[in-house]
Structures are given as C-alpha cells and as structure tokens.
C-alpha cells in the first residue's frame, strides 16, 4: 500500500501546532485515497515525540534521532528526510510551512527527483494527482497548482486546517542515521536569539501586532502592555521592523511570518497587502486605526476607528478586569 508521509516539525522541544494541522488534514486525504498515514520526526530526540504523534492516527512513525539536528544546519535534515522518503516510498509528503522546512524542501525535491509545491492553502489528492491552491501575485489571487509526479512534497501554510485527534496503534521505526558532522561544509557560528520572542509568534493563540501608527516608544510600550495582559505574542509590520523599533523576527507578512491565531489585534497598522498575506487566516481580527478608510478594516471582524493612544490604555484595564473576574 502506498503511503502519505507527514513531516512533524519540532521547534524548541515542542511539536508545532501547524504540523498537527497538516497531520489532521493528511489523515482525511490518506483515508479517502486508501493510503497508509505515516509520520516522520527528525530531531535530536525524535523518539520522545512518537506517543504524541500517535494520537493523530499515523499507523507508522519514523523517528530519526541524531545530535547533528541540534545545529540548525540544512544538510543533515535533507539527508534524513531523503532517507525516510526512500524507505516509505510515499505518494505524497506533507510538511508545515516554516523557515526550517522552506530551508530543505527544494533540496530534497531535487535530490529525490520529486515534485515540490510550497506554501499551499489547501491540498487534496484524487486519481494520483495532487491538487493545491496557493496564494500568488502578492497574495491577491490563488493559483491552482498540481502535480502527478510519483512523489510530491507539499508545504502547508499554518492555520489552513483544524487539528483533530484520532488515536491509533502506531508502529515506531527508529531509523539508523549515521551522520559525520566533521564532513559538514557549513558551520553554525552563532545563534542570535531575539529579545522580542517571549511567546513564539507562529504558534501563539493571540497576536498583538503594531504598525507605523505606534509612532514611538510610548506606542510600543502600550502594545507590549496589551500583549502582556493577554498573554499574547507581539508582531509588527514591515514598516516598523525596518525602522528598528522591533526585531525582524517579529515581522508578519509576505516576507516575514505567517500567523493564524484565534485572535489578532492590528494596532495602528494600515493593512498593506504584504502584511495581510501573513495574517488573513486569523480567526478573529480586531483592527484599531484612526483612519476609517484604512484597508485593514476590510479584513477586520471588529474594527475600531479611533486613537490607539486613547483606546489601548482603556483596553488594557478592561482586559485586566476580565482576567481578574
């Protein structure tokens, strides 16, 4: 029986929610096509995640553990994923779209002579053809991209599907993976952690994002205070990461992170299409802007037209009251 192989992205010792979204959707696609649902975990300590993954219905879980994966270099991951693809011989390989997977899928596709369709919003399989939709042209339109190749790799934007459990008895396969780190051509010299990342932006349930309207340190402080009372992650538009007010790791949009929280606050942020491309999958969007014609209001579930410097202090107090109740 042919298979559908799901890559389980791990970041900072946790399974990414977006990987579980992909796994949940993949279970439906596998079942509709009579494929066995299999998963692959590539991490310094991969086996420790197998139990959690089995809650989502994979019948076989490949774990590839090696200290080489600690160093955030692409070569060992490319080798490991290619090896498991060779073992599992899947029709379809699905991955959550993250910087880490973006770093390797092109190379794995080239190495394994497989098709790659990146950053899709939807995917399906019918009669051996993988069909997807993906935003293109600055996310203003969806392209229907497809492939009938023997093996197709698809990376999926976060927030595209809901997570659902379906526990199954899984066979765990610990894959032998020797890797000579001494033979690596790249060297990781330094990891610069960003001060702003208190809550991982791409995984956060609530995101509070600011734009040019924050103006200065006062505006920044208000935004961070709002994030604090909500337990939210802070995000930013390209305009204010470029100005240096926030680190580039917090940039949301077409060239930054794609987020899909339950609740998204867009504060003093006009809603340029490049930004919207990174947040339009959010469940509830609250926009606060003094310009009633700001494009962000077209996307907002709730739009407040007004001065953020007056609204935020009241909102922070209001949320404190709700949390205390």
């Amino acid at each position, binding site marked *: 029986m042919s298979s559908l192989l799901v890559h389980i992205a791990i970041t900072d010792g946790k399974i990414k929610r977006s990987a579980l979204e992909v796994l949940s959707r993949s279970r439906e696609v596998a079942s509709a096509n009579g494929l066995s649902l299999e998963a692959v975990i590539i991490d310094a300590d991969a086996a420790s995640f197998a139990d959690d993954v089995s809650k989502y219905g994979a019948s076989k879980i490949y774990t590839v553990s090696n200290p080489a994966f600690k160093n955030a270099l692409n070569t060992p991951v490319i080798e490991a994923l290619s090896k498991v693809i060779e073992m599992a011989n899947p029709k379809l390989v699905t991955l959550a779209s993250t910087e880490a997977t973006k770093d390797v899928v092109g190379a794995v596709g080239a190495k394994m002579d497989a098709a790659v369709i990146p950053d899709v919003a939807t995917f399906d399989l019918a009669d051996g053809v993988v069909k997807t939709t993906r935003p293109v042209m600055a996310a203003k339109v969806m392209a229907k991209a497809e492939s009938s190749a023997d093996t197709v790799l698809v990376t999926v934007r976060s927030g595209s599907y809901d997570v659902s459990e379906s526990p199954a008895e899984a066979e765990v396969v610990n894959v032998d993976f020797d890797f000579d780190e001494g033979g690596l051509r790249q060297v990781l010299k330094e990891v610069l952690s960003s001060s702003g990342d208190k809550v991982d932006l791409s995984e956060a349930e609530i995101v509070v994002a600011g734009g040019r309207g924050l103006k200065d340190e006062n505006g920044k402080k208000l935004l961070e205070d709002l994030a604090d009372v909500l337990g939210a992650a802070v995000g930013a538009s390209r305009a204010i990461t470029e100005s240096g007010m926030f680190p580039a790791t917090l940039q949301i949009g077409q060239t930054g992170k794609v987020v899909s929280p339950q609740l998204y606050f867009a504060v003093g942020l006009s809603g340029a299409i490049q930004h919207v491309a990174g947040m339009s999958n959010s469940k*509830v969007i609250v926009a606060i802007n003094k310009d009633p014609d700001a494009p962000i209001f077209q996307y907002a579930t709730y739009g*407040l037209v007004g001065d953020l410097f007056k609204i935020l202090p009241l909102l922070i107090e209001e949320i404190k009251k709700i949390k205390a109740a």
Partner: protein
Amino acid sequence: MKFFACIKQVPDVYAPFQLKDGDLVLDTDRMMLNAYDASAVEEALVLSEKHGGDVEVVLIGPDKAKETIRKALAMGAAKGHHIHVDDTSGLDSAAFAKILTAFFKTVEFDIIAVGKQSQDTDAGLTGAMLAQDLDLPYAANAVGLEINDNKLEVKRQADTAQEVIALPTPCLVTCSNDMNEPRIPSLKGIMTSKRKPVDVKTLEDLGLNLDDLKTNVAKTSVTGYEPVPERAPGKKFEADPEELVSTLSDLLQNEAKVL
C-alpha cells in the same frame, strides 16, 4: 571573488488584474527586476566593492527580459548572461534550476546569490534546487552577508532566531529583501550599462531542450487561478474610546467567545 546573481523578470505584482475564465489578465505589461533578486545583486555588489572581484548576472527569459539584465548592469554588475527562452510557460522551479545548473557548469564562480523567492509565484525553491543540483553548500533567507577568512558568513532568519552560518566557497545563498535597500541606478550607471557585455545563449548551447524540460523535468503545473476566499464581513465602530472598548469587550467575550 567572483559573484554571480541569478535574476528574474517578473510582472508588476501590485498592478491591477482581472480573472477571465480562470486566467490571470494583468492591466499592464510592465515587467520588473524581482525585488528579492535586486537585493541579491545589491549585496553581491557591496561585497565585491569591499573585498574585490566583480558581479555577473544570469537571467532566463525572452527578448523583453533584456531590460532587466540592463537594470542589473546599470546598478553595477560587470556582465550579463541571457539564457534565451521565448516562452517559459510550462517550466517550473525544477526546470529553471536544471537550466541554471547547466549554465553554471560553463563558468567559474565563488558565490552565487539568488533572491529567496520571486514576487509573482512566491515559491522560493529554485535556489535550494540549484544548490542541490550543483552540490554546493547553501544557506537560505539571508538577512546579512559578510566575508571572513574567505568564507561567506550568512546571517539568516530562522523560525524564532537568527543564525550565523559560515560557508566555504563555492557556495550559494538565497537573499531576503530585508537585508538592504537596492541602489537606484545612476545616470552614469545607465549610460555605461549600454556598453557592458551581455552573452546570449540558447538552451541548445547548454545541451538542453525545451520540450524535454517541459515534459520530463518540470513536475508541477498551474492549471488556473481563482479569487482569494473572502472573509465574512465584519463590524466597524466609530465612537468615543470608552464606548469602543466596552463594545469590543462585549463582542470578544459573548459573540466571538475568544476572551
């Protein structure tokens, strides 16, 4: 050091367009240098100015794409390479990578810089595929480049942190547009660009065949376009700040139930 930047001509993605029978029809035929590639050219120019060497650019496309090569030459690149393909429809990232692989086997280079993705398709695959096909070490999503001890040090944006990765040459790097502000060509740059050499090659010159690339190398295709799914219409309020906050608080708790 010998730098190469791979560049692509893309339509103006901010121009208005219509969907006609599932096809995308742009209101303009204006074409541009892909912004991410412009950052790759800029960064290569800065490094060559600092450490010596020069920058050449390579582009796959029809006659009209020559203007985009001229743009890079006007920015300061020394030479252009035009791989002439009249109609690139039906070619995907894998096919472009195959063409570039054949090209790079005909030239000497130390560092290949490419945009991390192209503005029209946002796929971001060609760089990694090219590196794999050429068996080069590479780093993706660079936001800063330095050369130290003959190694390329790439500061790259990862998921939650930035990493600095040193690559021996020859190597490949894919560039974010967050790394620099590409220079606007000066009048002098534009004048001298007209005298700079552009070497034109066909696919046959590289031992390739368009039909073979379309049927055997390209593995994905775009069959049409559809509108972005619309969000349900929202509610917009204009009132004094106290009323706005109490309205929002009520809606978030009782309607959306997210607080």
